[in-house]
């Protein structure tokens, strides 16, 4: 039996990411993993909500947050989620070049988000002396938002790695699940950000 699962338009199954048992396992396993990640973020959210008013005399959320930057970040990340959907659409149509193109745009948007976040953090640290160590609120804020940022960073490295690795050989049944699980991961990060936007920034500004 041949191990070359390269696809051509004639033999391509409908859902290349789930065409093999390994692919199916990876797909299901990754969903479970995201279930666990949900609990992880839920715990961080719980911690944040408990400690968000424990400023120990330092700046409060209302004084710190500016919604303009956060709005831009939200747009960046939400559209990157959309572009990764396009990429998966092209994967299912076996159009490798367009998939890579959209994944590339996803990466650029992701880096844009990350840059904004780094700017935001340095701004808080230098302008307000609001750090990870300054109060329980600071610890909880940087832990929650930082964990999310860490996930974005990991996701971007992962994306770049599989894009470069597969740049020359195109799509096959072995790497399709890898691209697909990445897109699941990216959507998850996006959903978490929506909650961060609501719970941390909107509630911090209004509540």
């Amino acid at each position, binding site marked *: 039996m041949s191990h070359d699962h390269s696809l051509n338009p004639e033999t391509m199954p409908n859902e290349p990411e789930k065409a093999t*048992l390994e692919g199916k396992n990876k797909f299901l*396993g990754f969903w479970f993993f995201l279930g666990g*990640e949900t609990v992880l973020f839920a715990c*961080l959210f719980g911690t944040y909500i408990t*400690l968000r008013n424990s400023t120990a005399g330092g700046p409060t959320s209302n004084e710190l947050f500016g919604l303009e930057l956060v709005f831009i970040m939200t747009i960046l990340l939400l559209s990157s989620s959309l572009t990764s959907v396009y990429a998966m659409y092209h994967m299912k149509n076996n159009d490798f070049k367009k998939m890579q193109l959209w994944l590339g745009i996803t990466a650029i948007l992701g880096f844009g988000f990350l840059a904004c976040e780094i700017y935001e953090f340095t701004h808080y640290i230098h302008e307000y002396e609001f750090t990870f*160590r*300054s109060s*329980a609120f600071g*610890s909880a804020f940087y832990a929650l938002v930082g964990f999310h940022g860490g996930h974005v960073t990991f996701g971007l490295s992962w994306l770049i790695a*599989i894009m470069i690795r597969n740049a020359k050989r195109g799509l096959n049944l072995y790497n399709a699940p890898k691209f697909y699980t990445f897109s699941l991961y990216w959507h998850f990060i996006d959903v978490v950000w929506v909650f961060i936007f609501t719970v941390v920034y909107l509630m911090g500004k209004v509540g």
Partner: protein
Amino acid sequence: MSIASAQKRSFGAVLWDYLTTVDHKKIAHLYLFGGGFFFLLGGLEAMAIRIQLIQPENDFVSAGFYNELLTMHGTTMIFLAAMPLIFALMNAVVPLQIGARDVAFPFLNSLGFWLFLFGGLILNCSWFLGGAPDAGWTSYTPLSVTSPGHGVDFYVLGLQISGAGTLMAGINFLVTIINMRAPGMTYMRMPLFTWTTFVTSTLILFAFPALTVGLFLLMFDRMFGSAFFDVTLGGNSIIWQHLFWIFGHPEVYILILPAFGVFSDVIATFSKKRLFGYTAMVFATILIAFLGFMVWAHHMFTVGLGPVANSIFAIATMAIAVPTGIKIFNWLATMWGGRITINSPMLWALGFIPSFTIGGMTGVMVASVVADYQYHDTYFVVAHFHYVIVGGVVFGILAGLHYWWPKMFGRILHEGMGKLTFWTFFIGFHLTFFIQHFLGLMGMPRRYWVFLEDQGLDTGNLISTIGAFFMAFGVIVFVVNAIYTAAKGEKAPDDPWDGRTLEWTIASPPAHYNFKQTPLVRGLDPLWIEKMEGKGNMTPAEPLGEIHMPNSSFLPFMMSLGLFIAGFGFIYQVNYNWAYILLFGGMAITLGCMLIRSLKDDHGYHIPKDELEREAD
């Protein structure tokens, strides 16, 4: 058969085989040896604790060392002994019970084991590096934050690393059971041990992340100066208790449910009867798991959460008694009208029923809030959870080991020594822990280095210590039995117990691909069905064809080693700059291995059909 043809290999070859294996059966052996080693270590710590408490104001160990012992005893027994031993059984049995050739993620399976082992090693390195953690296995803040030295740091890193391994194992079993069942093996035909593994894995998936977060927060507070639990900066130490018990209570069910599964299989087999009320048993398992997530605050009745929260959690806790009771009665009904063979695996199941019923009773008693104001944090609670965890989990592990030993190693454990282990351990267990209920009510809080003279606590503690020696003797006999069996034990046939489920249809131990042809399952207890119809073996569901197998890999070992090294980096970067080399170096090894894993194609290999045909002869 494969073992008959196996050549004598050099020690190096065997070692390399085990270091790189992704075969679930070998990983089961690794879990058994790793978990067994830590079980003996935890037992040694328990003996030191009991010797210290043999008489009032004893000075066998110092106060600080005693606290290290009690912390390490709890942590070791829960995370490094009970869980891995259960994973040993799961790995050895679950793929066989569902007619699969391997687990869904063989690579992750191996990674899970090495993470557990290196996590356990990091934790125990603390003994030699300035002292073990001393804030209790629950590590309540702020005591754990202010605990001097690096002990608690080792706790944090060790559990974080081994916890990651556990999470992987959980996901692995979930996907294995969902995707890799043999044709005809519907959910409601799965043996109870597989069912409980499935439900336990769900619990692991949703409970362990809470511990992960808790450990991260503790790590940040201890090593990076954050203020989650620092009251002066607005922190709140109760957060830790919530996070810990949101994990910790499901953890109890993570341990006990697989034991329930073992007993269900063992009791059905040795009663020669189908499990009574199979459907009820499955739903009771699911219900216990579901309720298990809503009761964590019953560990916190005295924290001051208020009467409303306390009442809600009390009632939710009591509700768990209902599905547990259903299980007890179903086991009794399974034996009723059966033909009970009493041998060493069955003895553990029979010993379990009264022991666990007492543990369950006291469980309902501690759920009664106002009564718990007296029980909480006393020896009553110590007695309660040892009745549940020793009387339930350890008995279950030992029943499972005696039952599946032939399948795992191809030899049957010595029956006489098995019975001796049971009787000494069983008597010692009740002697040690029954009296502790009363010690608690007589005013002895748990985690007491000494109890004072003339407070009426002497006799009870003496009896308890005597019991502990009986238990230790039982364990030693078991170890002797295992060694004796490896050297001179009786060779096991494929089906030594007249079994009912798929694992007994293949060789003991099975070939590395388990099933030459995937079996066709026609109902619950598939082998029993075939036996009753006079066939005695399974109908294949597929023609003989080549078998796809995963490649061995050294990467899991290296990834775990990288985290092990990075762990030391995290711990020592507080004092020394050179530790950053360890931190970044270790992380580089791990992430590098992950990158290799992601980028290097690994398609596995195929066993050709003619080779399989040759082996048949």
